[in-house]
């Protein structure tokens, strides 16, 4: 009996650090018993039979849910009469799971959000009975247990005070560092600008960062119209390095306390909302970890304010950073339910967020295909689709969801990030190598700095430095590690991309935007030789080859691609290989290519002798006419197969390049 029925959902800041285990599991005890005796085997069979007899409409397992509610999805939007028929002795209330937002009714209906209801059960000891009762109604399509989350202790979060940071300037002097901003601890944030200082890591690799320096210097530092929702623990919105970049709901801020001034269904939601308690955002309770505040700082700590750290899209100190919305789904180690997390995501969609940064998910291996995930977590899928289809900026036709890939060290990403069209982020360290804890392989689309500490010699500077709640008495900043920390780097880069596209007057579909983002990556595979020692263990690097998505995120390359379709110059009359590395990232050589296509007109324009194709990351062309043509190159971002109903896999991405055929060409791309 190999089936693992346990479900858990947790934050991804390093596996030891903190885990939010969601639920229990239908038959985990049963799996243990199964190897013990024939009596146990009989019991297993009995339970399996019972399990198999349940209605196929029911998804999830009852042990997941301590909340006295069950989620129900109807075939069609139900009438009042249909809802009333559900009520009975054991069914106390039936209410819409999602608030309906004026003006978005059509979109809500398109993704089925108008058909989800939350049913309150009188007797939580008989959740299965209640589920079966609900499933018996013809017009009920899905019955989903409202799973809980719980928090597991963390042990690798290193808070630091400003004084401590000032005393521990690493390596070469701070004065020698040419940094774009005056934030005093930007010098410690190797994940933005890695100067190759061995004080960060004995195996530090210069340039192992997100290549954001020149973006900040020459292109953009953010845009306050772009809102990133941190779906996580509460964000300390009055943190001195965050407050300037917090999203502010002006109607609530200037309204009356205790009143839903903007009539969006939430009271006093000035910087977001606490979906666990249904009230104020919190971050400093005894069992909180500061996770949300740390993630928020990576995305948009205020830059150039002579204070603390920098954030990827934190602006230039002129009020031009992107804005952070706190959508709190964990509170004092108590996790929310499915109903909590899905409402947090819908809130983000309905209140202006263009990106959700989600450093949580299920442990690796819980689901092995999109289909399996959909069978257990339909409400989550519906609301993620709804979020992406909502449009909260002038650049895209929708929004972008970004998830961490997980910290189990598994050779596949976790869900929801592993969904084939959702971005899932894995982690690398300051050595430009995968971190010891990161998930990798199918479903992992791209890698970003997640950091890692070194045990021998002990060094915390290889972790990610960001903002932290001082209420824990240990300073305003902390080092953490995990794909939880990698995820907000990509969220920040995506936000920078939106800001730059807006500045350039560019528009994209969200699919195009994701493709540009994923193809803006650098090679990491060529470094995957031998082994590395980290996390108190030696890791063989070879298994990670071609398993780290498209490579390491490159903010500058991303912005260059946003500027427009890249042009490659070819020499007329010659067979040649064109290097697309500058546009697909240097990881182009390691991608799995699915197709190369060109229109008939463009084929003729270039006088091609044969169809172009990709090999070893280069584009083969043989033009015989002076002219140009646009060529579409399709590859898999994350593994060698495309994910889908039956398997975890990568995302399909298509990049377009233009080839200009001239009678001559300069090797450096110069016109003359």
């Amino acid at each position, binding site marked *: 009996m190999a089936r693992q029925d346990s479900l858990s959902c947790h934050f991804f800041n390093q596996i030891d650090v903190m885990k939010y285990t969601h639920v229990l599991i239908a038959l985990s005890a049963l799996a243990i018993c199964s190897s013990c005796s024939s009596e146990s085997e009989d019991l297993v069979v009995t339970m399996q039979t019972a399990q198999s007899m349940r209605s196929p409409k029911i998804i999830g397992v009852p042990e997941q849910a301590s909340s006295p509610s069950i989620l129900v999805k109807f075939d069609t939007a139900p009438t009042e009469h249909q809802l009333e028929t559900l009520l009975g002795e054991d069914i106390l209330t039936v209410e819409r799971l999602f608030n309906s937002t004026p003006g978005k009714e059509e979109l809500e209906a398109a993704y089925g959000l108008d058909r989800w209801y939350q049913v309150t059960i009188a007797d939580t000891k008989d959740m299965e009975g209640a589920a079966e009762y609900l499933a018996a109604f013809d017009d009920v399509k899905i019955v989903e247990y409202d799973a809980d989350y719980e928090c597991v202790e963390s042990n690798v979060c290193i808070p630091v005070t400003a004084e401590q940071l000032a005393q521990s300037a690493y390596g070469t002097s701070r004065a020698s560092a040419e940094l774009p901003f005056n934030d005093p601890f930007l010098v410690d944030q190797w994940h933005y600008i890695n100067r190759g200082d061995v004080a960060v890591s004995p195996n530090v690799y210069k340039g192992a960062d997100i290549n954001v320096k020149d973006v900040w210097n020459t292109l953009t530092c953010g845009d306050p119209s772009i809102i990133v929702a941190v779906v996580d623990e509460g964000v300390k919105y009055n943190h001195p390095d965050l407050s300037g970049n917090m999203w502010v709901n002006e109607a609530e801020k200037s309204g009356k306390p205790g009143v839903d001034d903007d009539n969006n269904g939430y009271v006093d939601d000035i910087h977001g909302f606490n979906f666990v308690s249904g009230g104020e955002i919190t971050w400093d309770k005894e069992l909180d970890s500061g996770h949300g505040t740390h993630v928020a700082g990576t995305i948009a700590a205020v830059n150039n304010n002579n204070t603390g750290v920098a954030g990827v899209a934190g602006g230039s100190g002129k009020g031009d950073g992107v804005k952070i919305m706190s959508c709190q789904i964990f509170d004092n180690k108590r996790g929310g339910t499915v109903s909590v997390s899905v409402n947090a995501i819908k809130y983000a969609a309905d209140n202006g967020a263009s990106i959700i940064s989600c450093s949580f998910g299920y442990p690796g291996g819980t689901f092995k295909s999109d289909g399996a995930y959909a069978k257990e977590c339909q409400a989550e899928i519906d609301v993620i689709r709804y979020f992406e289809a909502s449009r909260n900026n002038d650049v895209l036709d929708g929004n972008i969801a970004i998830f961490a890939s997980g910290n189990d060290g598994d050779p596949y990403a976790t869900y929801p990030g592993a969904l084939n069209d959702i971005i899932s982020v894995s982690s690398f360290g300051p050595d430009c190598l995968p971190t010891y804890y990161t998930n990798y392989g199918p479903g992992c689309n791209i890698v970003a700095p997640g950091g890692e500490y070194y045990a021998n010699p002990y060094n915390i500077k290889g972790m990610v430095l960001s903002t932290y709640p001082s209420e824990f008495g240990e300073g305003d900043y902390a080092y953490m590690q995990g794909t939880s920390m990698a995820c907000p780097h990509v969220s920040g880069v995506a936000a920078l991309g939106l800001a730059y596209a807006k500045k350039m007057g560019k528009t994209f579909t969200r699919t195009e935007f994701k493709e540009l983002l994923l193809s803006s990556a650098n090679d990491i595979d060529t470094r995957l030789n031998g082994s590395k020692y980290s996390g108190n263990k030696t890791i063989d690097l070879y298994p990670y080859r071609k398993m780290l998505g498209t490579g390491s995120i490159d903010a500058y390359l991303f912005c*260059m691609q946003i*500027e*427009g*379709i*890249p*042009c490659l*110059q070819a020499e007329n009359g010659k067979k040649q290989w064109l290097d697309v590395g500058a546009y697909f990232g240097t990881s182009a050589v390691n991608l799995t290519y699915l197709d190369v296509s060109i229109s008939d007109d*463009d084929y003729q*324009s270039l006088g091609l002798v044969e169809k172009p194709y990709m090999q070893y990351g280069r584009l083969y062309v043989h033009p015989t*006419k*002076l*002219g*140009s*043509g*646009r060529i579409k190159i399709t590859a898999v971002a994350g593994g060698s197969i495309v994910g889908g109903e039956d398997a975890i896999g990568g995302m399909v991405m298509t990049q377009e390049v*233009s080839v*200009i055929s*001239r*009678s*001559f*060409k*300069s*090797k*450096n*791309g*110069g*016109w*003359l």
Partner: protein
Amino acid sequence: MKKYLFISLVCLLFTGCKKEQTEEESLNIVGSWHLTELSQIETRSVTIGKEAIDIYIHFIVDNSFHLYQKVGAGKFRHFSGTWELVDSKLSGMYDDKTMWGTEYDVMLNNNATELRLTSGGEEFVYIKEEIPHSVLSGI
């Protein structure tokens, strides 16, 4: 008589030199140029197929040059290097030691406001024009 002939010969030589220098002066390409026409086999425009081409070149008297190019979408890219004009043939090298992709035949119109560079069946027509600040600052 011999003396006279000698003087005459010197005069002739001098005259010849002066004539050659005048031809060089007629190909004075120093200044800023903007690509306005680009010949292809079938078209004459500043596009190649679907791609718009925008090129500014500044030839400086010390034989250095600055090239600002936008090929297709995106921002202008800046290149610089050195140029040489010998016998109406223009060639050059970028600062990264990459040679130009070709050597051009050069023609200037009478008032030196139009520069024609030809090579390999392609003809490029540049007009004398200051490089806009937006191009320079966008680098």
